[in-house]
């Protein structure tokens, strides 16, 4: 099959490449662009380790063809750092609250949590659990992940109020 020319925005930068249409977005990110934050976990659309933000939606990049993503605006966990390169709020809260152990699910968790908090800046614990249901973690038992996200919500609100 012939390759197609794809062009997308990843973490704010225009990127281009040649890829077969059947290439999955996760493979394009990791292998063509060397953006290895998003992980390949189950490869069957269940675990959420490959979650990226695409056009303002959390998607499992193992279940998107690069052809479908052509022209899209994609953010990965790498794009969620502060302008000076330090950890962003959600990343920092995962560290502080021990929201990870082995770390494999973490990029997907953080990227999903980012979109969740964009849509619902003051979630209840139940809303966090419901909103994070597409991401699996086999280490933490989720408790500290939920704590980290609730703490991020408080911090982000504080930052927003301070800015206003």
């Amino acid at each position, binding site marked *: *099959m012939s390759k*197609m020319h794809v062009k997308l925005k990843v973490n704010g930068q225009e990127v281009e490449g040649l890829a*077969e*249409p*059947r290439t*999955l977005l996760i493979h394009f990110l990791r292998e063509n662009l060397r953006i290895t934050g998003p992980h390949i976990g189950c*490869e*069957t*659309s*269940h675990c*959420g380790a490959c*979650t990226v933000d695409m056009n303002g*939606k*959390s*998607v*499992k990049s*193992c*279940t*998107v*063809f690069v*052809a*479908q993503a*052509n022209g899209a605006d994609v953010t990965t966990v790498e794009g969620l750092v502060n302008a000076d390169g330090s950890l962003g709020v959600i990343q920092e809260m995962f560290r502080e609250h021990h929201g990870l152990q082995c770390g494999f699910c973490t990029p997907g968790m953080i990227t*999903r949590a980012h979109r*969740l908090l964009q849509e619902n800046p003051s979630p209840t614990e139940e809303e966090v659990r*419901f*909103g*994070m*249901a*597409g991401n699996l973690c086999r280490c933490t038992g989720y408790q500290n992940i939920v704590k980290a996200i609730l703490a991020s919500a408080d911090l982000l609100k504080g930052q927003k109020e301070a800015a206003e």
Partner: protein
Amino acid sequence: MIPAGFEYHRPADIRSAISILQEHGDAARVIAGGHSLIPMMKLRMTDIGHLVDLQAIGELKGVEVGAEKVTLGAMTTQAELIGNAALGAKIPLLREAALQIADPQVRYVGTVGGNVANGDPGNDMPGLMQCLDATYTLVGPDGTRDVAARDFYEAAYFTARGDEEILTRITIPVPAMKGYAYEKQKRKIGDYATAAAAVLVGGGKASVAMTNLSDTPIWSEAAGAALAKGDVEGCVAAAMGAIAPSEDMRGPIAFKKHVAEVILRRAIAKAQERAK
């Protein structure tokens, strides 16, 4: 888990999409959210030479909420459906069911049209649309036709849709029945139903449909007629007589029948309570 190669098309209107389907016949397939199709392609269970992406077709988008009916464009995602407050107020059953489909990531991209067109007995929307007496609009090379959801499903993955037709819209009459419930038993978040039931009841009317308990969704006219008269036992007996579950990794037949009855009774009780 790499699917076989294909040519990719992204037409901007329905006409062009249909002409690609006509040109390539069996070898072409449309893709909406891709969250049923791509997993199948990865398993190499379908062979597709030409993939026709519907994402750029504006005519397939949009939700219209009228006094007597609502219309959903086929490319409406589950997340858009859930987020539409006017729709949620008009037909709360739709939202209640959509919230029980898959997980947030899947609901952002999975479309209502893909869910009903797929023909997988595990999909939740087909039974729901039968309960609501929805109508599907299909556009093909020979024009436009409407098919009732209750007449659409023939067998697992076989529907009344022709290979060169695209499902464009779903029209749902606003139910007169005030009581509603969608109840679903699943092994974990993101799983398909072991059993699910959609119930509408109120004002001397009722409608009952069940999911993943046969190779098509099951809408039972007799179950609805019994429930309309307030005969819960008659309703359950009729619905249980209409299902035909098979054994799979979700359990043996006896277990599925047990779960089906529990779920149906819960849905009936909840719907009756809400009808008051």
